[in-house]
């Protein structure tokens, strides 16, 4: 029973997170609307949970994102989930301390890997479809996202570091 409630609450939180993500895109002015709130949250979950379960949560979340995407189904889901997985591995093998830098670093790595895989697959599919590639058209949409998302993650990490024990700097890592 407790497990069912736990998974149900995770489902509700994921739906709410998606609506917050939409809110950030629709309401915030440019360039803040390029902030990827999902990556901010997933980065913090990677650091806070230190558990592979975050990859499954990310997968379910990006399945919902996929429903509102016009790209080929699976593009965002595959890119984001594998990016989360790789970032989790990198976090486990590279980061030893919990500082604002780890929040910044994890978020930066995650957004770079996600957009890298997404761009490669997107170009493959659209090249097949249209026969043209506009490399510079990728720079502007992603530039702000790559800059803002890690900064915001780092700032939120600092706030959580001071207010919760989950994100405290001196912490025995679980793996």
């Amino acid at each position: 029973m407790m497990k069912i409630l736990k998974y149900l609450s995770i489902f509700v939180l994921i739906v709410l997170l998606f609506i917050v993500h939409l809110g950030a895109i629709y309401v915030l002015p440019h360039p803040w609307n390029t902030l990827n709130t999902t990556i901010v949250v997933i980065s913090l979950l990677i650091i806070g949970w230190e558990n592979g379960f975050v990859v499954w949560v990310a997968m379910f979340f990006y399945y919902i994102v996929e429903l509102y995407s016009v790209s080929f189904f699976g593009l965002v889901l595959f890119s984001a989930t594998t990016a989360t997985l790789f970032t989790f591995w990198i976090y486990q093998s590279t980061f030893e301390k919990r500082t604002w830098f780890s929040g910044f670093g994890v978020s930066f790595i995650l957004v770079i890997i996600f957009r890298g895989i997404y761009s490669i697959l997107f170009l493959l599919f659209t090249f097949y479809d249209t026969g043209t590639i506009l490399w510079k058209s990728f720079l502007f949409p992603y530039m702000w996202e790559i800059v803002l998302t890690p900064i915001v993650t780092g700032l939120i990490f600092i706030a959580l570091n001071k207010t919760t024990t989950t994100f405290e700097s001196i912490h025995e890592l679980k793996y």
Partner: protein
Amino acid sequence: MTVAIILVILSIISAHYLGWLLRVEDVLRLIINPGSEIVYNWGIDFDNEKQFISNPEKLYEVYKLKEEEILSLQTARSENILLKDENYELRNQLNFFIQNKLRHIGADVIGKNIEPLTNTILINRGFEHGVRVGDPVVVGVGALIGRVTRIEQKSSVVRLLKDQRSGVAGTVLNKDRSIGIIEGGYGLSVRMNFIPQNEEIKNGDIIITSGLEDQVPRGLLIGNISAIEKELYQPFQKAVINPAVDLDRITVVSVITSLGESL
């Protein structure tokens, strides 16, 4: 864990394309769409608030009225030119028919693109309302904003004119009635390409749909020319278009579902 995740992802993708997840996806959209609509309308209201923070309220009301007036006048002007052409054709033919009224349904915009490389909006009409892929979508008195690119049971995604994968056949209302393709550029601009170099176009010329494509009737207003790009020895010239409608602040649209009698 890696293998498990890859297998699950591939299973989900396969199940989606096989249609096994249709009900699950419909339930998820049913839960999320109302939230999306609320948040989208907040975004529009917030944008409108920003406009008159530095202007008197009265000036803003007058500005909005003038904006609608300009759109109506542009549409009326394009209809007038088309009517003149049509009158000339009718005089030379024995069998003719009066321009068909368009069958259409109204829809609310409940969301927009969540990916940075696309420019789309989400509307609350789907295949159960008669919407089909490729249907043109208009606002106001007949200004084209895009075409339906994906349909679900109760919602559809509309690809806007400024999307880089958008392409609509257009006609310039100039002396030569120049034709070309209206294409988007990753949300940064709308351009008309493949206009013959030898045909004269100028800033301010109105552009309408040419009617050369299935499902898209002739005469829908697209915008007007704001700049021309011409290179010597090239067979075609290009025009940068100022769309008739602000594609970032759309709240209500109409989907043209057939070229038959209007409802």
